[in-house]
């Protein structure tokens, strides 16, 4: 820690440790695994998160409490998963009732998840791949951009920040989630560039089949929430323009209160992508904080599988 004014990252960490002292060693391990470049990104993302929090209704202390709740709930799900080898939620209807339609829990959940973006080494690693491998190296000026399920809005904002897209959209099926995205873009920038709307991709399938307009599509931490992940991948092929690239972040062996579809390995995730009519162009596996890839695979611990895919057969 520096002796000067507390940085956003330091403030965030201090708030979490004040409500959850036992979590200090996890955070130290998570930070200790990062390169200097990743630490710089961590500080940058923490500043963005601090701005989002300052512009909203809840203060940092509330976010810290909500982060603890989300981690503890996830730990409970982890034990159920280890005992049963499957996710506890068995249908979208159940999750929709218990989580998505439960406004109080949704607020807690989304607050907590926002902090994981910087506190969990795997989530920060995903952001690093998204920025450096996808946005910087695979996106060209003038392309159109679509994110499905933008949630907290950070990925959409980072795409706006890249400054190359001619047309940008964010689609979600949840009003509350879309309001979060809108808030993020209003605070961090990008609100004027992005068309946000309630849109179920599956409902568009017949209308747009073969006439897609989006050249870069983002589907981050969405597939595991759906009962039929292959179906949405097929539907997305219909909104994709020729030469499109799809960025996917799908957690493997990652139980959570609202995860339905279980991918047991990177290979299973890749098979869903292929079955959905896409071809894997690039892939990376990022294990949970504190775990090597080998140990995460052996112990069936969460791995974020990152995939960039192109429509098959082009």
């Amino acid at each position, binding site marked *: 820690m520096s002796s000067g004014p507390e940085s956003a990252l330091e403030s965030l960490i201090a708030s979490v440790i004040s409500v959850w002292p036992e979590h200090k060693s996890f955070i130290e*391990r998570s930070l200790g695994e990062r390169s200097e470049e990743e630490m710089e990104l961590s500080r940058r993302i923490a500043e963005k998160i601090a701005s989002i929090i300052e512009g909203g209704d809840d203060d940092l202390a509330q976010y810290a409490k909500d982060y603890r709740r989300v981690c503890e709930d996830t730990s409970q799900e982890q034990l159920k998963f*280890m005992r049963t080898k499957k996710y506890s939620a068995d249908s979208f209807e159940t999750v929709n009732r218990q989580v998505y339609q439960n406004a109080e829990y949704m607020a807690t959940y989304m607050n907590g998840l926002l902090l994981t973006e910087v506190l969990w080494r795997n989530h920060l690693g995903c952001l690093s791949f998204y920025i450096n491998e996808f946005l910087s190296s695979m996106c060209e000026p003038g392309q159109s951009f679509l994110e499905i399920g933008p949630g907290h809005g950070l990925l959409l904002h980072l795409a706006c920040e890249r400054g190359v897209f001619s047309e940008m959209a964010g689609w979600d099926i949840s009003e509350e989630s879309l309001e979060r995205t809108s808030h993020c873009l209003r605070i961090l920038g990008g609100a004027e560039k992005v068309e946000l709307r309630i849109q179920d991709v599956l409902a568009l399938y017949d209308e747009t089949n073969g006439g897609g307009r989006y050249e870069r599509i983002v589907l981050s931490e969405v597939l595991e929430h759906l009962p039929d992940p292959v179906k949405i991948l097929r539907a997305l092929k219909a909104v994709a323009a020729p030469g499109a690239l799809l960025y996917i972040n799908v957690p493997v062996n990652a139980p959570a209160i609202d995860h339905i579809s279980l991918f047991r390995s990177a290979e299973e995730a890749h098979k869903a992508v292929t079955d959905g009519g896409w071809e894997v162009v690039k892939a990376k596996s990022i294990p949970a904080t504190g775990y*090597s890839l080998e140990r995460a695979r052996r112990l069936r611990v969460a791995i974020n599988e990152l995939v960039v895919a192109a429509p098959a057969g082009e």
Partner: protein
Amino acid sequence: MIEMTEIELKEMIGSIVDCSPDQIRLEMLLEDIPNWDSLATVIFVSELENVCSFILSPSDIESLKTFDSVVKLLRTKEAEI
């Protein structure tokens, strides 16, 4: 039910956290074992339940602070069955 020796317990923990069983001492806090974290606790509990054919209650899990407490809990469970 399979009864586990202290050495087998150390080997189980060692395989979870990638450390030598020799590094684990009886009085040692689990959190002081290299690479130990809350996720390791969950993995350890599920492996222990699987091998020994019992289910640990939340209070059982909460009591797992030191390696010695693991051994004592295991012996209590063995005596109950």
